[in-house]
């Protein structure tokens, strides 16, 4: 007897999967657009100088990367972050959206799957993208705010690696969704936990590590432009 699976969801990683950009592009955008020319120049210079540090931190873990990375947002006001998010969508994320991404989401929705973004970016920055692509839900990092300003820390748990898988598991349980009939799309080996937790994992333009795992596990590999 074939077992019927319950309703599922499609979980998407963002950076490198649906868009060609990554978190550093987001940081540089905010840095470029800080109030005043001097402040902007200073934050951009600091951000650029921090790039080697990001790479070093990512080699340790995605978690370490996030902890280092989000310090660069310290002092930015929530209002400004929200305001700039619209421009971030228009100027950075939308042009970097893979042309096939919207179709993938649309076909997925047509199958009755809930559309959920699961990203290491922070919620304010991706809010316009979530709205424009019609996601039903979003699991993203949240910047810690004090007196309306970013403290440079994230509200735990930091959304990366195994935490993404944990979030997906909790979400599915809360919403009564079947993980067995759910899909996940990601590009990096660091997203292996997120891919492993669903019944239908898919590697999108995978890095070498994920490509190897996908080949070994027989997972579909999508090459999007």
């Amino acid at each position: 007897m074939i077992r019927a699976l319950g309703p599922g969801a499609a979980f998407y990683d963002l950076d490198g999967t649906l868009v060609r950009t990554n978190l550093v592009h987001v940081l540089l955008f905010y840095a470029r657009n800080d109030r005043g020319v001097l402040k902007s120049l200073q934050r951009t210079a600091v951000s650029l100088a921090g790039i080697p540090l990001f790479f070093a931190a990512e080699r340790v873990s995605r978690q370490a990367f996030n902890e280092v990375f989000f310090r660069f947002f310290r002092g930015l006001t929530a209002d400004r972050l929200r305001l700039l998010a619209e421009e971030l969508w228009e100027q950075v994320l939308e042009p970097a959206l893979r042309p096939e991404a919207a179709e993938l989401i649309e076909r997925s929705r047509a199958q009755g799957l809930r559309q959920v973004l699961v990203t290491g970016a922070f919620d304010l920055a991706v809010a316009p993208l979530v709205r424009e692509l019609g996601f039903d839900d979003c699991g993203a990092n949240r910047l810690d705010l004090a007196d309306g300003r970013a403290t440079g820390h994230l509200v735990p748990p930091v959304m990366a690696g195994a935490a993404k898988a944990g979030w997906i598991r909790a979400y599915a349980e809360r919403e009564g969704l079947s993980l067995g009939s759910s899909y996940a799309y990601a590009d990096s080996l660091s997203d292996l936990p997120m891919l492993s937790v669903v019944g239908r994992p898919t590697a999108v333009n995978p890095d070498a590590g994920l490509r190897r795992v996908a080949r070994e596990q027989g997972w579909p590999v999508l090459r999007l432009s």
Partner: protein
Amino acid sequence: MSVRLRGRPDAGTVFIDTDSAPRVLHCGESLLEARLPVGTRVVYARPPIAPVPDAHQAIREAIENPLGCDPLPAQLRPGMRATIAMDDISLPLPPMERPDVRQTALEVLLPILAAAGVDDIHLLVANSLHRKMTEGEMRRAVGDDIHREFYPDRYYCHDAEDPQGLVTVGTTPHGERLRLSRRACESDLLIYLNINLVPMDGGHKSVTVGLCDYESLRPHHEPQTILDSDSYMDPARSALSRKCDRMGRLVDAALDVFHVETVLNNRMYPPELAFLAKNEDDFDDRDRLKLRAARLALDRLPWSARRAFFQRLPAPYGLIGCWAGRTEPVHERTLARCFEQYAVAVEGQCDVLIAGVPYISPYNVNSILNPILVQVMGPGYLFNLYRGRPLVRRGGVLILAHPCYDAFDTASHPSYVEFFHRLLPETRDAFELRERYEESFARDPRYVAAYRHGHAYHGAHPFFMWYWGENGRRHLGKIIVVGAENGYVPERLGWERAASLEEAIAMGRSHVGRSAEVTMLHLPPIVIADVA
């Protein structure tokens, strides 16, 4: 058991004697040698028919003297929109030496169109739900010059999932709706360039399958149609052909189609491997040496290297016929020529049929023959290579040789992995699989994206491949595989496994009786058994 020692009742059949040479079987990317029991009948392909001396000239003559319509030049006018659709990489098998017959035909067709002032020409690969060809494969099919001129804007693959790229042609009286490529339908003239390798190719199937969408395939790519086909290599008794013909009449009513059909001979081996098509009793010292060298080399190479070795050997096929004009009269002539090359008269059915499964099928050019494709070769194509009656009697045994490795090319066959590992453990019932799962695979967004934007077979394709074996599975009493490197792939396919051909024959005899008539189909080249 009737033993006719060394008898040769016709050119294609040999009976094994006490001093007969061992027979050579393909076993995926390796070769097996096996001594068959005395009295075993071995059916060989006919020798290749001599090709036409000038392929360009033969195609030109066909185009200028078409069947059932005006010559092509008389149908052309300046400024008209023309589309030349052509078969995809599944034909011929293996890919032929350059120039491919598609290139040869285009070198004839394109100047005729140009001379008539037709410059809105698109070249469309009729890949249906097959994977899209890579740029390199497309270049090889038409040659560098044509590729340079047309690719990618005017030379591309059909997209059966492009919502904007399909239009409804009509619905047959049986309720079968046909949707086809918009470009093809909105052209003033659709020229279809076909390569006929086996009798199930060509005719109305070319356009109605090659350029359609998933929904249009469903009426005939389903298990009952396959069960009702006896066999699908015999168009006169094929429900699949009848359904395609019905849909084809919709095409004829709606579109101007000029069909160009080509027939190739069966010279599939390059000279260094030509001995594989010979009767082993006729091997000379050089043939024996080549066989030994090939076996030694292949047995020492990893699978991937063996695969690369075989896939890089193009076939020196020759054109043995070309007809052009209206689809039905053209196809009638094509089929007759096709059977001249492939049909071999065989007297009576057998109880046990032996066949080696080669490294290639229509669906794994430049890729892996995964377990589902091994299945489509066994109870699918090999079983269906008959006209009249099946070569093996009802309840008989089919013995196949293949390693049955659990390997999939996830770029080409992503949905096959899920089909094999998730669905088959639950059920092998083709009707249940279709009812419960086919549509969800067809609509699966990952598989649609992989088909549209990559080089993957459509999500529903493994289901079709499973249905393709339905009449074989129902007809046969047992399928035994020799050479399998594991037990679970054969088990999941519903097959038994034997350590050697001798053991498989003994298992077969224990199933059908000690006096079993044993026949080996010596493939390739392809044989259509005309069973009296």
